[in-house]
């Protein structure tokens, strides 16, 4: 087999050295009755060409050729071939977690740069080397707040990504942590009065997302003031990281939990992406995940190491701040390369283009009779519209035009059946937006 670097003769020689008659002898400690008598029933073996053929055939069964207005936590943004060139270098791709600092300085310095970029983006003081994704980052941020405050209640805006909320509930369920949800007010932001009403000094954290799931921006600074009054920590989750190129950073938050997919990672049907937790220095010891730190060797050369490992499972075991071990390092590297490419101006311009395209799209859609925006708080590149009829029906119609319609809000929010979440990034050109508006208009004119 092409991946195995042994010839039959070499196998024989090595078996002889270890005193085994045949390969089966190597498994003497496996009780006879449990040894497989027949070969596994698996497809293959396939040559490289056949493997490529198989996956190209699967790809052809997907959405090639469609224009999509989906966002809802996963965004199509421009990516550079440079990013892929770098992360496919074997020295990065096939290297392990950098526990042996002397021969993994490349990975370690890149993590240090990633941490720095995340701090600059979020306005926070420290950031970790990555979490699995935005949903587990938000969840672990809440658990972190729980440890920091030793309180057992959490208030979560219903405008936080529905799947993020369900992950939090899965983790919280047995821990005795009480998760309560706060609805949105008419403008789409969290209902501040309801929040005030429920905020007590037994609340560990308030979790909001900004821009939130309806696309509108939460008043983080205001919320922070309100939340801090009760000694509660404010956790801000972000699914669309590109927004930080145009929006003030959530510096007033105590913990920021971010999904970095927008930074050079392909949608890839849901992953792998990269979660981030950023926070204040004083909360460092309760932070989950790996951290790279700067130090020097005996001759004073600058170098980097994984540090503060006493928070982690491999040292602290049951007392660790989290059970995370393998994280999303290569995705974090991709995001680092991508952000270094974009740089200050590139990210600003990209964010600005999203802002403009989304506004142009909204204007086009609002020209259609019966279509109106659902919430009027400021938004970034996603906005919610209300249609005169079921979004599901409309989307079915749009599919015939090779358009993947906006996200259907009704499933997660029964009260919003006729509402749809439209996402428009810099990758959608004007003609496609106009075609979308045109097709939607037609779809709405169809008799049901």
């Amino acid at each position, binding site marked *: *087999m092409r*991946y195995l670097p042994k010839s039959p003769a070499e196998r024989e020689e090595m*078996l002889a050295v270890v005193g085994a008659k045949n390969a089966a002898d190597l498994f003497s400690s496996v009780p006879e009755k449990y040894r497989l008598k027949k070969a596994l029933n698996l497809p293959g073996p396939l040559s490289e060409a056949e493997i490529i053929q198989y996956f190209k055939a699967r790809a052809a069964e997907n959405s090639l050729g469609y224009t999509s207005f989906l966002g809802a936590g*996963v965004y199509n943004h421009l990516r550079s071939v440079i990013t892929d060139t770098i992360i496919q270098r*074997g020295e990065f791709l*096939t290297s*392990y977690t950098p526990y*042996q600092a002397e021969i993994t300085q490349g990975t370690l310095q890149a993590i240090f740069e990633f941490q720095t970029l995340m701090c600059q983006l979020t306005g926070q003081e420290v950031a970790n080397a990555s979490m699995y994704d935005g949903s587990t980052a938000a969840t672990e941020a809440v658990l972190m707040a729980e440890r920091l405050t030793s309180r057992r209640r959490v208030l979560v805006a219903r405008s936080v990504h529905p799947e993020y909320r369900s992950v939090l509930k*899965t983790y919280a369920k047995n821990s005795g942590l009480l998760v309560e949800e706060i609805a949105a007010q008419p403008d789409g932001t969290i209902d501040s009065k309801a929040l005030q009403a429920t905020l007590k000094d037994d609340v560990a954290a308030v979790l909001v997302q900004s821009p939130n799931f309806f696309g509108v921006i939460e008043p983080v600074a205001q919320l922070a003031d309100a939340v801090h009054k009760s000694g509660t920590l404010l956790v801000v989750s972000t699914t669309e990281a590109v927004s930080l190129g145009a929006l003030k950073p959530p510096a007033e938050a105590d913990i920021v939990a971010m999904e970095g997919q927008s930074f050079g990672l392909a949608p890839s*049907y849901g992953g792998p992406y990269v979660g981030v937790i950023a926070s204040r220095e004083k909360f460092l010891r309760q932070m989950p995940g790996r951290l790279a730190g700067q130090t020097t060797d005996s001759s004073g050369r600058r170098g980097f190491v994984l540090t503060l490992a006493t928070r982690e499972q491999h040292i602290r075991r049951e007392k660790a701040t989290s059970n995370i071990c393998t994280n999303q390092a290569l995705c974090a590297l991709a995001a680092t390369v991508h952000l270094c490419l974009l740089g200050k101006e590139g990210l600003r311009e990209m964010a600005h283009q999203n802002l403009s395209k989304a506004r142009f799209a909204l204007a086009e859609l609002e020209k259609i009779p019966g279509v109106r925006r659902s919430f009027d708080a400021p938004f970034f590149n996603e906005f919610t519209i209300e249609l005169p009829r079921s979004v599901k029906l409309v989307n079915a119609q749009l599919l015939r035009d090779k358009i993947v319609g906006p996200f259907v809000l009704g499933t997660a929010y029964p009260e919003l059946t006729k509402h749809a979440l439209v996402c428009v990034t810099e990758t959608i050109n004007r003609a496609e937006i106009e075609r979308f508006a045109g097709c939607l208009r037609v779809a709405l004119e169809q008799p049901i």
Partner: protein
Amino acid sequence: MTEDFKKASRNVSQNEGLIFEKSSPGKRAFELPPLDVPDADAAKALGGYFRDEGVTGFPEVSEIEVLRHFTRLSTWNYAIDLGMYPLGSCTMKYNPRVNEFVARLDGIATEHPYQPQELSQGCLKIIKLLEDCLLEITGMDSITLQPAAGAQGELTGLLLIRAYLEKQGNPRKKVLIPDSAHGTNPATAVIACYQVENIKSESHGQIDVDKLRELVTEDVAALMITNPSTLGIFEPRIAEIADILHRRGALLYMDGANMNALTGITRPGDMGVDVMHLNLHKTFSTPHGGGGPGAGPVAMKKILEPFRPVPVLIEKEGGHLTRDFNRPESIGRVKAFSGNFGVLVRALAYILAYGPGVRQATEDAVLNATYIRKKLEGVFDLPYSLPSMHEVVFSDAIQKKNGVNTMDIAKRLIDYGFHPYTTAFPLIVPGALMIEPTESESREECDLFIDAMKSIAHEAATNPQVVKTAPHSTRVGRLDETTAARKPILRWKPTPSRSEAAD
């Protein structure tokens, strides 16, 4: 140090500062197509939320500087592509490049998790086929591919157990974990709100079955066993252990991180295991990428199926695949979207390349470990004498006499052109040398490793200092970890002088 080694020489390599230190206002590495719609007035659109100055401190560099920066950094890394990476318990095997290729195909990498299922049949078929393959390999009844890594798989598994027991009326309190277990096991148990009871291995490094019989009370929800253990030893009495647990209504969780020793040889499902996770980034060759991403599918017996995370993939008549979200007993989601799909694609590509022949990979992996053990036995102390499977664990007992410990030996290996083995655990072996060659190493590479280890053992006896101060061949020497932890510097900050570049 200008020593010459069989496998390694020193060569000139580029220094490189932090990317932020290369920044100068106005440089760009990325340009966008011109905006083709009216330019929105951001200040008006965003009001007080507008960050008009852009991100303070973000680098401003050119494309070639970015490419060079990361290319130079990469040359400071060791990698499988460069040589043997014998990290015990990490299964650092060859990462086939075709897997990277297919994961990036248009129609695979470009797919959105929320696109209609009728436009996602290709993705769903990939998931389904991988599920089927992993069930065949593990001998289990049902599986979820949602967990992002092994540790999350463990959590998923324990939550399934808890949900099952809860339904029986009592979630119970404790999870038993052998002292040889990986750190994620106890850490996970706590997140699943179980108390951890560590159980000591008996003299052969196995689970003390009689002891276990006493320990398994009505309070015990499960035993988390790693098989083969982190000592590289197979637990022959696993079925008996499962039986003990089952008799008392507890379940058996198997940490499948070491499935590289069993694939195609035997199946946990046939030995009474109730639930287990797999590390696709170990056994199934998806790249470690400097720490991740991975995937930690959880395979289970029928009894746990009702509690699987949502959504659950189901096959409709005509082979049409859809996702079922209506699973009242489900533990819920452990991760957003469809798991680390890109990792799943790579793992399936790996399995398809081998087919049933994957057994040969397992045999070669065990052969390599056994071969290295045979050649180094006596040179290094072997604390446990039972047959090794995918890895062999020595101790530094012999070298300790000269004040040389496992970390010193590990660092010295670097000078010989190898990545160190695992030193961190298993905790039951003081000064452990945990060596897992995997099937990807040729006899030539194994022999070079053996020579290096023997030579280091000789140095430890004759010239311990050279080992204790290793590595001598790397661009930086041993780094000051104490200061790093005591005065953490976790991000770059602009030095006043160039602060103008930073805003």
